[in-house]
């Protein structure tokens, strides 16, 4: 069961795509674990995700912290701190 991984703003630009579908293995249970996997995928991924103080995350469209579970997650999104309004 693949998980949809979304990127926004400069994270999307650096990675070069806004959406990927990734099959995480069973030992990948938290957001932090997933980030570890993603950073291995390409130098662009590693660059975009290397400074986690500049990255925020949502699981199934809800803000979460890096130690949140991604078990049964359909969608994980990575983005910079928001700047709307």
């Amino acid at each position, binding site marked *: 069961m693949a998980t949809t991984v979304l990127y926004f703003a400069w994270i999307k630009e650096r990675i070069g795509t806004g959406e990927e579908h990734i099959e995480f293995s069973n030992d990948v249970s938290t957001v932090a674990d997933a980030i570890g996997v993603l950073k291995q995928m390409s130098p662009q991924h590693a660059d975009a995700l290397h400074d986690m103080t500049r990255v925020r995350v949502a699981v199934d469209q809800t*803000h979460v912290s890096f130690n949140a579970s991604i078990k049964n997650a359909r969608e994980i999104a990575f983005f*910079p701190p928001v700047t*709307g*309004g």
Partner: protein
Amino acid sequence: MIRVQDDPFDPGAELNTFLARNPNSGGVANFIGQVRDFNSPDIDNIKSSPSLPKEMISSLELEHYPGMTEKELRRICDDAKSRWPLDDMIVIHRYGVMTPGDPIVLVCTAATHRGDAFAACEFVMDWLKTHAPFWKREHSSTGASWVEAKAVDDDRSARWNRSATESKNK
């Protein structure tokens, strides 16, 4: 009511529709955020050093996370309704490409007491600024750059947590 849209909106027309829908609300507060034509870091510089060149913004691009944006705005509105007795509220937020002077966001709140209308309107703006998944990119003569989040917005947003805790402790 929540609307996230690419199309421009008319703040005056929206306000009048909102007022007409709530003739019995003694107080209606509202807020409009507009695109400025010089960028955010410069604004503070201009005050301290008037000789610094202004970097003129030609357009503002607003990216968002479709689906989560609406969900998050709904959460913020529900939270506001649970904190203050409101008769009605509306949040309109644009995405896409805007030019200076364009309205980006409109929040209207209606209540019996003006203090509730004011507080809810400001709360929604503060939380929207720190929680709604929008990202601004400014286009100017020197290129395009993503706007950095401001610490002051985190502080303003955090105030509401503090006051929630304080009232619980009373």
